[in-house]
């Protein structure tokens, strides 16, 4: 049973346009959400996060929106650049007996075309 779902395995957008990556979760106990970016042959790198007490967090071209009632979050990249082409993982965090555990989605491969 997948607790964090990224239903789009891939997304292709034109340079300069907006990229919207979506993520759904099922566990209402999740209280912290993160996006990681992964280039081929590299480990995932942290991109942006949001606490469950907020509904929006912005960092430069990247904005994450959280809709708790819908158990849905999205990552907006605007404007998209070719260097943004990577696999993006959504992750959710829950405290388990004093230790925090991250649960990842399967990732969405974003391709930004010049």
């Amino acid at each position, binding site marked *: 049973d997948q607790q*964090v779902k990224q239903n789009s395995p891939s997304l292709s957008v034109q340079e300069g346009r907006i990229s919207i990556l979506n993520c759904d979760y099922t566990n209402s106990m999740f209280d912290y959400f993160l996006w990681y970016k992964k280039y081929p*042959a*590299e*480990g*995932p*790198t*942290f991109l942006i996060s949001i606490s469950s007490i907020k509904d929006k967090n912005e960092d430069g071209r990247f904005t994450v929106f959280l809709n708790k009632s819908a158990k849905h979050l999205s990552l907006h990249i605007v404007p998209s650049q070719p260097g943004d082409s990577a696999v993006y993982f959504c992750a959710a965090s829950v405290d388990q007996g004093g230790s*925090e555990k991250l*649960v*990842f989605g399967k990732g969405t491969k974003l391709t930004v075309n010049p």
Partner: protein
Amino acid sequence: SAVISQKPSRDICQRGTSLTIQCQVDSQVTMMFWYRQQPGQSLTLIATANQGSEATYESGFVIDKFPISRPNLTFSTLTVSNMSPEDSSIYLCSVRQGVNEKLFFGSGTQLSVL
């Protein structure tokens, strides 16, 4: 952010053999984590390695198959034992650091089992 060196970066192994993956961090950390990413799947936590104690394994992972060593606060190894083609995955070492203790990853080990 932590600098995590992981080796080997990739290997092709024969069925029934074992491979030990090394992870070196440039600073002392309490916990180190080992993840697996099977093809087309999400990152899945294998175990948490604490220095001076036995690793804590997640459901579905056992010490006999994935023995872990943690001899000091900057180093850990994961062994994939008696390998089968189903063990073909990317194996990732990670640590928590910084504000909100973000998860940082090594570059991963791409394992192919023939």
